[in-house]
Structures are given as C-alpha cells and as structure tokens.
C-alpha cells in the first residue's frame, strides 16, 4: 500500500516540477520525467517479481507447459516498456516517434508469441487431419 | 555533517571567486574612467600652460587619486630614466589591465604625442572622446554583465554541491 502512495506522490511531484522547469528548459523537464518513471518502475520490481512467481506457480500447478507461458510474460514486458517509451516520445512532441515505438512493440510482441502461434497451428492441423 | 561542511566550503569558494571577478571588473572600469579624466586634464594643461610632457606626467602622477595614478607615474618615471616619449608611453600602457579597444586607443595616442601642441591636443581630445564612449558603453552593459557573472558563479558552485552531495 505505501508503495502505491510513494509512487503516486513521487510521480505527481515530478510532474509539477517538470511543468515548472518546462518554460526554461523543456529537455530538463523530459529528463526529470524519465528519471521519475525509471525510479518508480525500479521500485516496483519486487512486487512484480512476486506476481510473476505466482503466475508461474499457477501455470505449473495447472499443468500448462512452460514454453506456452513464457511468451505471455514477454509480451507483458514489451507492452510495459513500449507504453512508457511511446508516452515519453509523445511528451517530447514527437508523435511520429511514439507511433514507431508502438509499432516496434507490436512487431516484437508478435515475434515473441510465435512459438505459441506455431503450437496453435500444429494443434489445428492435427485436428483437421 | 562532513557533507554540509563541504557544501559550505564549495559555496564560499564560489562566492569568493565571484567577488574577485566583480571587483576586478570594477577596478578596470575605474582605471579607464580615471585615465580618460587624466587625459582631459593633460589636454587642458597643454593648451593653457604649454607644460612640457615630463613635468606634466609627473604632476598628473602626483595629483590624480585612483588606479590611473600608477599609469602616469610609470610614464613619468620612464621619461626621467631617459626613454623617448613614445617608448615611455608604451611601457606604461603595457602594464595596464584594460580591454583591447582601450589599449589600442592609448597606443595610437602614444604614437601621436610628438610635434606641435595643436596636434598633440587634438590627438589627446580624440582619445578622450573615444575612451569616454567606451566607458559609457561599459556602464550600459554593466548590469547585464554583473547578472551573468553572478549567475555563472552561483550555478557552478550549486552544480558542484549537487553532484558531490
């Protein structure tokens, strides 16, 4: 609970400071925002780790093979990074770069989930054969 | 505790450097203004009393109060030791710490200090006009320059404190 409060307070503080600093130097404002984002995400590491460990246990208990769940985690990680990255680019006024980052995220997520899709294709082939 | 002491030391160092730079700039401006006034006095003396150069320079070296006194005294000293007037002038000008345009005006004046009183007076008055213009320009630019010096030293020491704390 306190971690959520800490994260909120830090981010709001950083946003206010960035607004103040933006008039004098927009680059510093963006760097400040980046720094706050990185710090908050780093501090969430432990909580995220616990959540992922639980998901793993769930997967192991329910008998789903390991190889099928890893693409899911990878896609989640890609989504997180890409969201923050494209948000930062949009903040800097570069919406073209933001959409490029999002496209990269989509392509990489697709590439990461190829094993899963391949398995589904095999299953379909087996069913139809 | 040590960090606080260190921060205070860095800030004090920055303040000292700032104070030094400001007083050096002020001293330069005062020297320039003083030399201009002294040259004006020189032109007056030459026109009214036709005082010869060595006596005039020695008199100015005694009567002026302020940083330009050294300049006139050195020129008078060099003349007394037997150097030619342009040489003595050049020697005295070389010891001055002024911006290059002021030094250029003074060196040009040193070349023109030969010949009859009319020409010398004209040359001196021309130099006085140019130097007065430089002093007014300096005074106009001074608040900006002071603000910039303050900002520079303050932010340099603040940056050091932030990085090292």
């Amino acid at each position, binding site marked *: 609970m306190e971690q959520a409060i800490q994260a909120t307070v830090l981010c709001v503080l950083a946003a206010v400071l960035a607004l103040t*600093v933006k008039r004098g130097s927009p680059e*510093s404002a963006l760097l400040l925002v980046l720094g706050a984002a990185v710090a908050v995400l780093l501090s969430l590491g432990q909580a995220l780790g616990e959540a992922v460990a639980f998901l793993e246990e769930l997967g192991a208990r329910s008998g789903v093979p390991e190889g099928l769940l890893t693409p899911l985690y990878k896609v989640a990680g890609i989504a997180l990074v890409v969201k923050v990255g494209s948000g930062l680019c949009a903040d800097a006024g570069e919406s073209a770069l933001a959409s490029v980052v999002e496209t990269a995220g989509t392509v990489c997520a697709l590439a990461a989930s190829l094993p899963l899709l391949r398995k589904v294709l095999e299953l379909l082939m087996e069913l139809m054969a | 505790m040590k960090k606080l002491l260190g921060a205070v030391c860095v800030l004090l160092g920055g303040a000292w450097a700032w104070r030094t730079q400001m007083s050096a700039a002020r001293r330069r401006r005062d020297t320039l203004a003083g030399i201009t006034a002294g040259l004006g006095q020189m032109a007056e003396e030459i026109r009214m009393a036709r005082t010869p150069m060595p006596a005039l320079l020695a008199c100015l070296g005694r009567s002026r109060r302020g940083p330009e006194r050294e300049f006139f005294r050195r020129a008078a000293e060099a003349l007394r030791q037997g150097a030619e007037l342009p040489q003595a002038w050049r020697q005295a000008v070389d010891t001055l710490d002024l911006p290059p345009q002021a030094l250029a005006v003074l060196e040009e004046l040193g070349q023109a200090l030969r010949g009859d009183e009319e020409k010398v007076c004209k040359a001196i008055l021309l130099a006085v006009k140019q130097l007065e213009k430089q002093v007014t320009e300096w005074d106009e630019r001074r608040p900006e320059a002071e603000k910039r010096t303050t900002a520079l030293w303050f*932010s340099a020491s603040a940056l050091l404190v932030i990085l090292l704390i």
Partner: protein
Amino acid sequence: MDVDLIFKIAAIGILVAVLNQLLVRSGREEQAMMTTLAGLVVVLMMMVRQISDLFELIRTLFRF
C-alpha cells in the same frame, strides 16, 4: 525508492532552466544551448546506471 537521485536531477534541471532563461533573455543563445547540452549530458550520465538496472530487471522478470 531512489529519491536522492530524483532530487538531484530535479535540482540540476531547475538550475539549467534558470540559467537558460537568463542567457536567452540577455541575448546569448549559443551559450544557453551549451548550458542545456551540458546539463543534459550530466543528468544522462547520472541516470545511465538506473536505466540499465531497469532493463536488467525487466529482462529477468519477464523471462527474456
């Protein structure tokens, strides 16, 4: 949470912003840009470790 670093970055950012405004107002635009660039480089150097830590964390957490 690494608040110290954030405050340092914020302080440097404010310093750079103030200097920038001052220099632009007195007409020295190239020096303003140089100050901004210097501030940028300093802040990035301070943050490089954190950013690489973050990417390492994401790599291990999401099984890359």
